[in-house]
């Protein structure tokens, strides 16, 4: 059976690419520290020697639209073109082409449906920065095949937080039941406190540093019990109007497992939102 060699969760700051490649006067003062933290984070994936990446993210009204909005969707395609015109325009992100791992996509869809998750699927999916940002930070060669999994954290009505956790647990079990010898890393990105298009956006820190502190603690210690006790669809409005993206972190806590302490924890306090990086090695770092 396949092995989950790493579980990785992070924010997906779309300005990293631009900040890290800028030079001279265009280079922001925090760029060097940011690059240093990302380089260390990247090493946590590299040393796990993955063959396949399961990538959990959320389409930001790019291909998925309100006339036909899935709650959870699995890509099943041989290739995925990536990034959209408005992401090139606003964030300077490059166009990319990633390979797909269709066998694992098919396995996740079949087993997920049989486990009670009515997963949508797409045979032609263009993926956006929620998945390309972690490719850029963690595997800039973009050489490994992927299975993209999209969640709806964006267009209410949304699934409940516990459903994200349940899906995360199921993804872990399903990947480990895949008849393959390949080494799989499950990578997901979400948000800490974040405001987009509201009065608290683009402040000197994230809109709710206290929420961020608690959230990092929950994730780093795998404290799903406290996290689920405090986080509701209603409560997530308070830290910032885009904070429902935190539910993708909760999904990744489900993948990692309750009570599992992360092996790598780092964060970076930036303007607008805090960055945070977590890696778990389910079978030990050198497995």
């Amino acid at each position: 059976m396949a092995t989950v060699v790493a579980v990785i969760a992070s924010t997906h700051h779309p300005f990293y690419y631009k900040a890290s490649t800028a030079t001279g006067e265009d280079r922001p003062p925090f760029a060097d520290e940011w690059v240093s933290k990302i380089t260390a984070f990247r090493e946590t994936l590299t040393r796990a020697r993955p063959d396949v990446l399961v990538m959990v993210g959320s389409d930001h009204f790019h291909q998925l639209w309100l006339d036909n909005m899935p709650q959870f969707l699995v890509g099943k395609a041989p290739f995925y073109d990536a990034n959209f015109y408005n992401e090139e325009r606003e964030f300077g992100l490059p166009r990319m082409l990633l390979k797909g791992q269709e066998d694992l996509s098919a396995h996740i869809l079949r087993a997920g449906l049989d486990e009670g998750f009515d997963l949508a699927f797409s045979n032609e999916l263009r993926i956006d920065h929620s998945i390309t940002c972690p490719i850029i930070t963690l595997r800039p060669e973009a050489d490994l095949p992927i299975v993209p999994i999209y969640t709806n954290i964006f267009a209410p009505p949304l699934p409940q937080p516990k459903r994200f956790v349940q899906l995360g647990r199921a993804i872990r079990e399903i990947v480990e039941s895949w008849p393959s010898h390949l080494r799989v890393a499950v990578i997901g990105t979400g948000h800490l406190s974040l405001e987009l298009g509201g009065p608290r956006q683009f402040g000197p820190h994230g809109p709710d540093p206290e929420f961020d502190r608690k959230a990092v603690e929950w994730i780093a210690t795998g404290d799903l019990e406290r996290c689920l006790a405090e986080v509701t669809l209603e409560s997530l409005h308070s830290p910032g109007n885009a904070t429902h993206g935190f539910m993708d972190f909760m999904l990744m806590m489900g993948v990692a497992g309750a009570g599992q302490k992360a092996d790598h924890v780092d964060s970076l306090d930036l303007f607008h939102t805090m960055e945070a990086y977590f890696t778990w090695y389910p079978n030990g770092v050198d497995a």
Partner: protein
Amino acid sequence: MSKYLLDKFLYYVDRDPDLVERYREDPRGTVTWWEAECANTVLNCHAGEASTWLRFTAEEREALAGQDHVALFALGAHPFLTLTLFIAMFERDHGPLEYQKAFGARLAHFELPYPDIAT
């Protein structure tokens, strides 16, 4: 209330570079044209299979024609769509992050809970 149609306008324009420029330069004309020609397009269907019932309220039409992002927020337009499109149109006229911060400051009178964005 047709929050869905407000969002559809923002989404439709934001993904098309020519329409972004057209809306920046001629907001009222673009809104009038779009409501007449595009509002009822089902985005995943052929042109002959359009909807027949979508139209803005007067308040919504005026908010879009006036490029009034504060009114759009009050009406429950999805703030990500509004922000993305308005950055595309107006960031170029300002210094780094200046437009984004002013955009937020103009919304400072809103308290939680914000207007509902569910469609």
